[in-house]
């Protein structure tokens, strides 16, 4: 049934839904309705360009919305409904890609970027401060220089802070 629907929709253009399948009745339980809309927002309308089934008015989206409502009414959990959808349509239907081998980089990527960026920055700044610490005027005795180095950045920072010339 759904396969047939899907094909019919794929042939017709996304918005072309003359005969409407079903519309939510006005008297649904608001909690279930809210849950249905939240779930629908996570599912992609496969025949549309880039719309969730919550946003689309395509036949397929209407049908899938009804599916979601019916399954909620039947007491299915969100996870069950989502696996029902992925079994039929693959991961493409999910706007939140599942964590697995091919998507691991997608999920840990932001963290890696942050760590790499922060490390580079700390590394550069420390190198820079060391450079600054090493560059006070040479008129100082070697011992004072060593002390400045041992004391760390504190001594170095007051050494020179010209405007980059």
């Amino acid at each position, binding site marked *: 049934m759904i396969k047939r629907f899907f094909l019919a929709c794929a042939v017709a253009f996304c918005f072309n839904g003359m005969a409407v399948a079903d519309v939510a009745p006005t008297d649904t339980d608001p909690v279930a309705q809210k849950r249905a809309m939240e779930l629908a*927002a996570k599912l992609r309308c496969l025949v549309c360009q880039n719309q969730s089934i919550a*946003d689309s008015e395509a036949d397929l989206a209407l049908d899938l919305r009804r599916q979601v409502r019916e399954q909620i009414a039947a007491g299915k959990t969100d996870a069950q409904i989502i696996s029902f959808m992925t079994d039929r349509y693959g991961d493409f239907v999910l*706007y*939140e890609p599942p964590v697995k081998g091919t998507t691991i980089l997608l999920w840990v990527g932001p963290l890696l970027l942050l760590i790499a960026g922060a490390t580079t920055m700390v590394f550069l700044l420390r190198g820079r401060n060391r450079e600054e610490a090493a560059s006070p005027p040479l008129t100082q005795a070697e011992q004072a220089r060593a002390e400045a180095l041992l004391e760390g950045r504190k001594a170095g920072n007051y050494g020179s802070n010209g*405007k980059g010339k």
Partner: protein
Amino acid sequence: MIPEIGQFALILAALLMMVQGTLPLMGAAKGISAWMVLSRRTAQGAFFFMALAMGCLIYSFIVNDFSVLNVASNSNTKLPLVYRIAASWGSHEGSIMIWVFMLGLWSCAVSIFSKHLPEEMVARVLGVMGLVGTGLLLFLLLTSNPFERIFPVPAEGRDLNPLLQDPGMVLHPPMLYMGYVGFSVAFAFAVSALLGGRLDATWARWSRPWTTLAWCFLTLGILIGSWWAYYELGWGGWWFWDPVENASLMPWLVGTALMHSLAVTEKRGTFKVWTVLLAICTFSLSLLGTFLVRSGVLTSVHAFATDPRRGMFILVLLGLVIGGSLLLFAFRAPKVGTGGTFKIVSRESALLANNLLLTVACGTVLLGTLYPLFLDALKLGKISVGPPYFEAVFVPLMVPTVFLMGVGAVARWKEAALPDLWARLRWALAVTLIVAIALPFILGRTSPMSVALLALGFALALWIITSAATGFLDRIKYVEGSFAAKLARQPRSYWGMFAAHLGVAVFIIGVTVVKGFEAERDVRMTPGDSVSVGGYSFRFEGTTDREGPNYMASRGTFELSKDDKAIRKLYPEKRKYFQFGMPMTEAAIDSGVFGDRYVSMGEPINDGKQSWSIRVYHKPFVTWIWAGCILMTLGGLLALSDRRYRVNMRRDVGLEKA
């Protein structure tokens, strides 16, 4: 005749840009001033011919010259005049055309407002812009000629995509492109500084106003796009994390980092290398955005161009611009000095950390946008990366950003003592935490998840406001005179920052309240039915047919009321454009400061009772999202109008003459 004039003007513009992109650069390298002085004249000439070509294209659209392929495929005699004009940039060819037109406009502006700059610098900046322009113009002339003729001439054109027949279309692309292309000035300044080996505070001061102005345009462009999507697409969202939206968000994020980094470079002489890199990245991302949208690699609501040849051309151009500038950067950057030092706790550090966070946020958006394309290209499966992913990774990055935004605006340059910062910010922090935690309960929320999300959003917004207030009180403490005099003594650049940061707070409040309190109903309604949402009631009174210039519409009539008191009538429409099969939804919105009431029509239902599927929404505080963006833009403009730039400009001119 007119299209041929346009065609020739385009070719002449390309030739002038080639001169602009070569001789002045060589002149600057060899010290030949006769070659350098060419830059201004060629830039102005190129702009003149670009404007002429643009005028010819618009004229062809206005007079319905269907012998021009571009006009025949994107316009129609029944299309209203304003959309015929907007159709000039609605097509692929037209949008590249307006891109180059904007580039001409910016270089012309640089040539006029650069009297205080050394000749060598002007030659290099305009030269770099000329090179970029040459690339884009060749792309236009060789793969996407906007003036291509067809024979036999069709009697009628196809229509403009109905999604684009909207006032938003008139403003959104020009604003967005002004922003995208505006960053080319910052890019050109950065590349010239690398070429000339003169990277110092003056360089930062010169490129700052240009960057801020481009950022203002981009902010405005994104804002208009978001608002347009909100009322035009008919499902009440304001940001969809669509790849095309991401393409405009990425340069915005890095551009924001650039703007702040430039401020540090100008004031403290530090972050120079980093600033140059950001300038290169911002413009590269603008180009990448153009590539993503124009090459058709993305198939989404916005992408209406598909032709692999064009994709390859832009990809090569992208490689040359990004690769070339990064290569130059790699050679020249190590020679740049480091500048003023600063401690771990200082305003510099806060700004640097935020730069990093904004850049990582941009990288994340890039990753999420391109990942499905790569997986698909490598045949590893098709996935969708949508709002749930972006929200999950973006929000955790923005939380520390906003926190540091408050700290950075208050912390001292060079070295800030933690105890001192704590003493100054503890009240702001206390107020923020108490109000943010209390507010969700006062507003009647009890579920832990909902309270936590609301409290987080409120805390971020309040933190910006309270820390900005703290900074403000600190600033006026030691100023003599009455309160009004104290206010008047603050420079405009300070007010600019103040307004822009408050804009972020207003934006966050809007997002938080909409997310937390929006309500929607998707219902079947028969004339006479009522549905209520968010305390408002919508009564459906039926539909009438209405004929528009190039469409037929079913117009619904709804009476909006609250507590049985009628407020106003709303007239949403479902339109069928003659040239297109797809019906379009025109939502009707009752907009107010504290919320919007939104109704859009779904589909008619064949039950013999003239029923329709209808969506109604209550969107509290949604307008605050856009109001926040407007405040940010105003902040940018205020900072631009700061006395410092004008005075410095005059002083520079004076020096040159002396």
